[in-house]
């Protein structure tokens, strides 16, 4: 009885963080797949999303859905600008591009510290109450996160599969030159993909704002986990990011329940290093040509 409630709790927590990791990793892997850029600033866009969600929801008191939209739009546009001005010059040079994102990350994080101060802020839940099923009770605030993440991902997936633009993005990811020959404007695809990627991160940040707290430093952990997820699932693979994200959420939730969160973190990172050694391109990833 006690164990089953503990188990249910662990599953729910695993789904919540897994959903967040999934959103982070999908965006991260999208940018890598299309642009071959490892975005070390991905976590900072999560943080900006969390702050946008916080300020719009707490100060403007508008419906949370609108807050999410605002976060996705503003951060997405910011991402497009960043890509166009700061990342595009390094298109032929993976390493310099990666170091540039490190610099962007440092600038955004410290900019946030000087604007909003280092102290964490608590964000109120967007819904209250619990859903009771038999002996189990699940807080709605957590269920909403899972549902929202699932919706966002579905929308993203439909966009990638069903629209011309989505197809164009996938074509660029497969082979940039051939895509160019087919008349796809790669110069538009890149900023757009980057914008979408960081918009997903911003949505994850805004959704998790009420679950964790909001501070300039909240971006590091999700980014770390996004790394772990994309290595699990394979750099550049969107299905890998989904499976890896949910899997990692579950692993983390269960190992944290059993061993504590620090040991859980160490175990996860060791697991990743192990997987990389056995399958260097990730579990679902393709070997690079």
């Amino acid at each position, binding site marked *: 009885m006690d164990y089953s409630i503990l188990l249910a709790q662990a599953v729910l927590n695993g789904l919540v963080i897994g959903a967040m990791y999934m959103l982070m990793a999908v965006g991260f892997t999208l940018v890598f797949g299309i642009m071959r850029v490892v975005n070390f600033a991905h976590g900072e866009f999560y943080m900006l999303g969390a702050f946008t969600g916080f300020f719009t929801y707490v100060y403007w008191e508008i419906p949370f859905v609108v807050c999410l939209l605002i976060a996705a739009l503003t951060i997405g546009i910011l991402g497009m600008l960043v890509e166009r001005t700061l990342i595009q010059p390094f298109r032929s040079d993976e390493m310099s591009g990666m*170091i540039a994102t490190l610099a962007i990350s440092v600038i955004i994080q410290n900019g946030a510290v000087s604007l909003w101060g280092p102290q964490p802020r608590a964000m109120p839940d967007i819904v209250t109450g619990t859903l009771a099923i038999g002996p189990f009770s699940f807080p709605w605030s957590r269920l909403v996160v899972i549902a929202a993440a699932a919706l966002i991902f579905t929308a993203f997936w439909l966009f990638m599969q069903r629209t011309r633009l989505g197809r164009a993005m996938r074509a660029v990811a497969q082979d940039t030159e051939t895509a160019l020959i087919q008349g796809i404007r790669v110069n538009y695809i890149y900023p757009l993909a980057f914008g979408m990627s960081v918009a997903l991160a911003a949505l994850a940040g805004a959704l998790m704002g009420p679950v964790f707290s909001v501070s300039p430093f909240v971006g590091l952990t999700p980014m770390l986990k996004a790394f772990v997820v994309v290595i699990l699932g394979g750099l550049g693979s969107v299905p890998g990011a989904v499976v890896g994200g949910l899997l990692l959420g579950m692993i983390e939730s269960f190992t944290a329940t059993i061993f504590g969160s620090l040991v859980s973190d160490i175990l996860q990172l060791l697991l990743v290093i192990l997987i990389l050694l056995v399958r260097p391109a990730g579990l679902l990833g393709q070997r690079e040509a």
Partner: protein
Amino acid sequence: MEGSSTATMGRDEPHLAPRRRLLPGIALVVVLAAALVLPQLTTNQFYIHLANLMLLNSIFAVSLGLIASVGQISLGHAAFVAAGAYVSALAALSFKLPPILGIVLAGLVTGLAAVLLGKILLRLRGVYFVLVTFLAGQVFTLIVLNWESVTHGANGLLGIPAISIFGLPLSTRLRFYYFALAAFIIVVTFVWALMRSQYGRAFRSIAENVRLAESSGIDVSHYQIVAFALGSGIAGAAGAAMVHYIRFLSPDSFTFNDSIAYITMLVVGGRHTMIGGVLGALFLTPLPELLRGFVGAQHIIYGVILLCVLLFIPNGLVSIGRSFFSKGSETETPK
């Protein structure tokens, strides 16, 4: 891209005219003399402290440059620095090992650890290697935090003894300065000699084109492990030297941010030459002091400088110096 490394490196080859070798020689003597005398002329302890940090950071950046010279960028460099620091500090505190031996021990342990890790990690190339060194660095920090019985966790280690040579403790900043200067000269000379040897040529050919190097019969993984082990070992020894100078060590002493700082120094100075790391460290270490007026903006300015260098002088400060010195007289081979 990496192709420019040969163009810049090739200029160190010994077939230059004697007149062109004289000028750098004189410059070197002048700089060395200044480095020996200048600290005697100031009583400001802070300047000497800054000079010490500049020398240590130079060693960190040069050792990272050694690893980068085979085309791999490590984002876990600070973890090796921290590992060396912990080895020497714990040996001194628990077993009363003289710090000077502790530094040697730290270099050997981290170098050996790098060989073992390198055998595994260096199978990965490019971004995968970067990601996994980043994660390995995080694992190290977590282990140090968690292993409280040995490392005292987040509380850190206090009362770490200073280095002493023949009974003379290097407990003042000035005394440590000469030690750091000597260490710096040894490291730079060693790396310089290494890069001119057969190893250096192999490193550069790997950085330029891994597959071509491999098919030319160069044992890529061997040379990558050598570079990784030497770079990490030097970093570990320098970390140990630093901890006997700062005399306090905690998991926050060397973190991911320091790894980024070393990369910044290397890139800003010029990542394709050994002297680049030195220049970067000499330029960036005192920078926060000059920016005292902009409290809180220091890190932002660091990031902005890094971005600007990447965008506008991709080969770093070294390339400015080179084009200045070689004006007119040079037939630079274009990339």
